[in-house]
């Protein structure tokens, strides 16, 4: 099992959406994929087209170690473990558990019957957060989703290319905007090989697919974003190798 934690330091960078999209493209490419929603907002299901937010999940069953009972399976064959709807106390209990034992998440995952070369993509809340920290601590790869805006530049991750377990990608990129082009150049300079060499374009096709409640690969297979996500999936596999 290889664990990828999707994180970011700003809100609305696109973690949840990319988590779902990456899960779909990797599953279609024949990989075993488990999507783990570690964000109390519990939104990953919507991005997957589940039509609602599952009530049960990590927050209700996680502490008891009964993960498999709450896992769902999408029509694409993706395993999906929702966060679930929990009271603030329940959420806080999980958070405290993660702070106390940062590797708890990984250990629990390893107890699941999941293929050794399977991929676990973990959606997290905006950093700093105990959930994001725990996901990053246990991950084989921390994958930062960077929104193309000025806040991103101010909150850049402090890693460097030598850190093999940390990568970034620029999301919602619009090549027509000169600010986007400038930001991209700055980020390439600062992050070097840490940054995925191509950005994910902002493409209306994504919003349309979500509105139609269809997987992007079915709704707009020839859209730029579908191509970008496919390429991103291949790039991630390459990095993990």
């Amino acid at each position, binding site marked *: 099992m290889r664990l990828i934690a999707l994180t970011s330091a700003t809100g609305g960078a696109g973690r949840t959406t990319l988590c779902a999209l990456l899960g779909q493209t990797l599953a279609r490419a024949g990989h075993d994929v488990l999507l783990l929603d570690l964000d109390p907002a519990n939104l990953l299901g919507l991005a997957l087209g589940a039509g609602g937010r599952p009530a049960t999940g990590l927050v209700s069953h996680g502490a008891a170690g009964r993960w498999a009972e709450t896992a769902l399976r999408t029509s694409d064959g993706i395993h999906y473990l929702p966060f679930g709807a929990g009271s603030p106390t329940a959420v806080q209990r999980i958070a405290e558990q993660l702070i106390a034992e940062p590797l708890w998440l990984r250990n629990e995952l390893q107890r699941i019957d999941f293929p050794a070369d399977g991929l676990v993509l973990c959606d997290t809340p905006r950093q700093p957060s105990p959930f994001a920290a725990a996901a990053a601590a246990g991950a084989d790869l921390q994958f930062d989703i960077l929104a193309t805006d000025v806040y991103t530049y101010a909150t850049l991750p402090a890693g460097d290319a030598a850190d093999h377990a940390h990568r970034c990608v620029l999301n919602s990129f619009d*090549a027509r905007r000169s600010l986007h082009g400038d930001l991209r150049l700055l980020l390439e300079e600062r992050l070097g090989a840490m940054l995925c060499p191509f950005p994910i*374009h902002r493409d209306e096709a994504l919003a349309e697919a979500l509105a139609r409640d269809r997987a992007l690969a079915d709704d707009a297979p020839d859209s730029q974003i579908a191509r970008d996500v496919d390429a991103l999936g291949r790039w991630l596999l390459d990095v993990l190798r």
Partner: protein
Amino acid sequence: MIAGLRRRVAVAFGVAPGVGLKSWLTALFVLPTSQVKPLPAALQRWLMPLQHATAIDLAVPAPRRLRQWFVALWWLSPEARQRLTPLSQVARALLTPLGWPLQLLERVLNHFDFAPLSARLETLATGSPLAGPLLGALGLVIAGLSVVLWATTPLSDTQQLGLFVAVWLFSMVVRRLPGRAATLLLAGLSVLATARYAWWRINNSLAFEGIGEWLFGGGLLLAEIYAWMILLLGFIQNAWPLNRKPAPLPADVSRWPTVDIFIPSYNEPLKVVKPTVLAATSLDWPRDKLRVWLLDDGHRDSFRQFAEAAGVRYLTRPDNAHAKAGNLNHALQYSDGEFIAIFDCDHIPVRSFLQTTLGWLLRDPKCALVQTPHHFFSPDPFERNLGTFRSMPNEGSLFYGLVQDGNDLWNAAFFCGSCAVIRRAPLESIGGIAVETVTEDAHTALKLHRRGWNSVYLSLTQAAGLATESLASHVAQRIRWARGMAQIFRIDNPLVGRGLSLFQRLCYANAMLHFFYGLPRLAFLTAPLAYLFFQLHIIHAAATTLAVYVLPHLVQAGLANSRVQGRFRRSFWAEAYESVLAWYIAIPTTLALISPHAGAFKVTAKGGLVEKPYFDLRIALPYLALVLLNTAGVAIAIPRLLYWNAFETGTVVMNLLWALANVVMMGTALGVAAETRQVRVAHRVPLRVPASLYLPDGRVLPCVTRDYSAGGIGVQTAGREPLLPGTHAHVGLRRGDSEATFPVTLSSVRGDQLGLQLDALTLDQERELIEYTFGRADAWLDWHDDAEDDRPLASLREVLKFGLSGYAKGLRALYSALRSRQPVTIG
């Protein structure tokens, strides 16, 4: 009285009074209906069915009209072609036995694996003790003596024929061996065959009677001597091209030198110059070490403003003395970069130009010049009018693909006026760019070589531009080159004077002598007429004897040249190119030899457009004259063959074949003179890179570019989105991983093929567009990938085809020009 006469002639010819010249011309060939007499009944009974059957076979729609027959003879309709298939199969079956021995030989040779033999030959050649200077000289002397011995040994005609067959068979085997040793061997065999022919020709075939034979015979002999010399010099120059690779630059960028980029312009429009200047400012080089100069001899305010906006320096001068050379020298005084890169204002450099070329200049402190090829992304008049663009090496391929690389082996690669870098110090030491001749470039390089500086040629396309637009401007350009080279030959002859090595002298001499082909080619194009018209025996030998000597020379030279230069110029195309230009080159080169400074210098016009097809009668007049003369020769040959000269059939047949070959060659020239219409001003350059189309509704479509031009981009989408022409969008182009977008309007939608017309761009956007299109480092890399080995016989067939279709095209163009009463020539 004249009016009365004219009326009577008009009545006799059946021409209505007061009509134009055309009706008169028609009347010369076509009887008016009132005067048509029916054929004798018996004849008609025979002829009508024959005509009927032929008309059906050839699919002539209206058999009564002569023009329909003419059209049908040149353009077979598909149905006619189908009907004729059995006929052509019969013809092929009859012709095949002729080529059969050759095919058999090739088939036998196919059974052998020549690789080990070739490898052994190669080690023998490269590891030979003859590589040392002393032994090498000894080897040269021995080789020279054996050539003399070989050439002078007398043989009977039969023995000579036997020798030829043996040498030819040997060559057919050697041809199969890859590698340079085999190439040298083929060239050697060709030299032997030519030496034998030359010895025989001079000793046994010269016996002139009367002034006519002296004139024609002497002329032909001189032309042949010229051809032998060019053949030999060509082998020396081209048999072992150096094919140098670029040298790397120092890793420490602070050690990279300062470079001035000179872009001279005289009368070219700004839209031609703009891309070049913008590309020059985007070259990959430290910004503080790169200065771009726009050198405007046209004194134009629009150029000054553009230079200011583009951030380049602008220079103009009070007089335009010495044209381009003077313009460059003027700029030398104002600039101080260690190196100078020169681009013609329509040669757009790619971004890697300086990094590719400067390496050798830094590695070798005695290197004064690095030259790269001139590449054209639009078809030249040959390619456009014959339809051979990108399907065949063009006229320039030989020079930039082989000759300069061959020169480079002997440290004799020379400056070609553009796409080159020169070291400032040596250039200033020879007084700047040479101004004495109209080919300042080659002369400057000669002066540098004389002072012991080295030159480098890199056969990597690092810039591209527009080819000459029309045959007229092409001819004008070649006249200038030929004149300039003749001038240098006259005033600063490379064969004499100080500072050059023997082989540098030979390479330069060949470069200049090459342009003297005008008179010799005209001699070959008219030689058979001396006999056919006047019964002059300009070669005093039996046709069979001549054949057994001249054929080995021609065949071996053909085989060797096909091997040495076939990838860059197909067999028989040199003859075609020369036939087109010979007439125009002949006079200026001769004049320049006599009086080097007579005549004026004309700048080649570029960026124009042939808006409708026309026949350039003024350019084609000499071709028509040569065609008529040779056709008349062919016509006369028939009674000579049958009656008048039946006692020397061999001679008649030889001259007849020669005149026929000339007629075919001139057909190519006519084909080139019939200018095909050019569809766009902006030439399309193929490019396949991923791109994105940003639609106004926020969707982004991935696509792949197909081509680009100065005004637009063609892309191919995945093809599922309904798109409307007229939509405003942006296209994002990629270079490596970076992307730049440009505003476009969808101008055409054909299935998944979209035509995107570029909207108005800011100067920065224009610069970026150049960086993503013409300035890409990989823009021209795969342009020559499809170069194939030469197949002499296939090439012969091709030249014949172009020759014949040249007549069809030329006559059609002439006909439509006459009919539409448009002016036949355009400036």
